[in-house]
């Protein structure tokens, strides 16, 4: 189980790791409540199936190296949305 703050913090750490930069260089641009189309938060990985129920969560936008990256989270999960073209469950 996670809350919004934990989700944002974990998203920053994950992006820093993926970009191989220090977490202090990852800025929080926006965090908003969102209804996602399914239980993989509209960010299914390859070979993944998910329940087709509208799922409330948070859309997290982070900025690093002048680019914006999107993460999606709910109380159960955190996902990187189309990071370099692919979805990743964290």
């Amino acid at each position, binding site marked *: 189980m996670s809350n919004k703050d934990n989700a944002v913090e974990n998203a920053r750490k994950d992006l820093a790791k993926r970009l191989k930069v220090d977490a202090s260089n990852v800025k929080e641009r926006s965090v908003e409540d969102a209804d996602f189309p399914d239980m993989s938060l509209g960010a299914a990985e390859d070979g*993944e199936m998910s*329940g087709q*129920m509208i799922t409330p969560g948070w859309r997290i936008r982070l900025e690093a190296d002048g680019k914006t990256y999107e993460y999606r989270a709910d109380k159960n999960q955190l996902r990187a949305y189309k990071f370099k073209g692919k979805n990743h469950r964290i």
Partner: protein
Amino acid sequence: MNRNNIFIHLALALVLILVAAFAGQLNRWQKDWKSRGVGIVPATDKKRPTTVTEIGLNETRSFSRPEVLVKFRSGVSQETIEGIAARFHDRIEDRIESDPGLEAIDDLDNVDAATVVAEYSKLPEVEYAEPNFEITLDANEEPLVPVFPRDPQFSDQWALQNSGQRGGKEGADISAPLAWAKTTGSEDVVVAVLDTGVDYNHEDLAGNIWTRPAGMSPYHDDELGTIDDENGYNAIDNAADPMDENGHGTHCAGIVGAEGENDLGIAGVNWKVKIMPLKFMNAGGFGSTKDAIEAINYAIDRKKAGVNVRIISASWGSTQRSRALEEVIRKAYENDILFVAAAGNASTNNDRTPHYPSSYNVPNVISVAALDRHDELASFSNYGAKSVAIAAPGVEILSTWLGNQYEEKSGTSMATPVVSGVAALILSEHPRMSVDELRKKILDSTDPIVALKGKTVTGGRINAAKAVE
């Protein structure tokens, strides 16, 4: 011929002439009496009040009663209409005030209605003419009376009966109470809910959870081993316990078959049914294609072992195609199992961007879109004039949740078990129906919805009452 014979013949001829004249006058008198409405009319010709209800109707073509409905074109005066009727020796029995120009006309010459219709139809002043069909209740069928369960939260289940609650559109529902007049389901029908598992201890579900029959061997897979599948199967852990850790599967199970008439919570589409929990999605509500395949394989195995699994309810999916998943669904078809699948929630056209498994072109698949309480396609629902078969209520649907709770949820996930539930109702009435017949029956049992025109194959919302006819 002698003189006496001539007199006898003259007398006979006079009598015959008098008889013929009297008969002719009788005929004229009869017509005159009838035209004044005081004639002796055969019992079958007497005007009878007709009873019209919404149910149990039979239309009988009553040509023995010389009465027709004639619609005159706009602008034809009443004087002209009366002139035409008089010319045909007919009487205008009634004017239909709500539809100017529509007249109920009674023929006074006992000509059959079809002939009268033909006469009027030829006139340029007439838009159409038709027999006044006699509508009667079928003598062998009692009119169905809607049945309402005493489950305390039934009034919040707009999908089953939409009375306009919370601003919804009255009648925008699946007509469940009318279907329940015929059947409330059967424990002989098994619906596999392939999902996050099911809270089989939920007080509103426990009585409808499938249990492996005594004497049936536990599930055995050569690679996976033997599993004591008392209440279903957990493909994630390859274990017996399909307990739900998310709530999604429990919600879907409640829609199919929360116990009805038990003074608790809600009623499912089926009050009595057997739900087989199959778990392949985890606490987060997602799972792998491989585990979905394993769970479907389990259902097929149990079917072959004698369990009456006739429906798999699949409220899940993705845009990624899997040939292996398609093939196992085809195996289910070959074993007479219907596969009801969610169309998806991306607001997209599945004809262009398929969503699987609902878009697989396999004969047992029914793809389901979601409607809201106003009979509008849900804003999130996928659609497809060629690829999405049917629609069902799927917004703000109240159903069972973990820990004896109830929650409202939205999605094509929620619309899917409505259709699965109706399929189970049909099978409770027609247990020998093949999967092809079952699918056709469902697709033939819809109410046309304006918002669905060009959006789904049927253009309609599932109607449970029609489905169980």
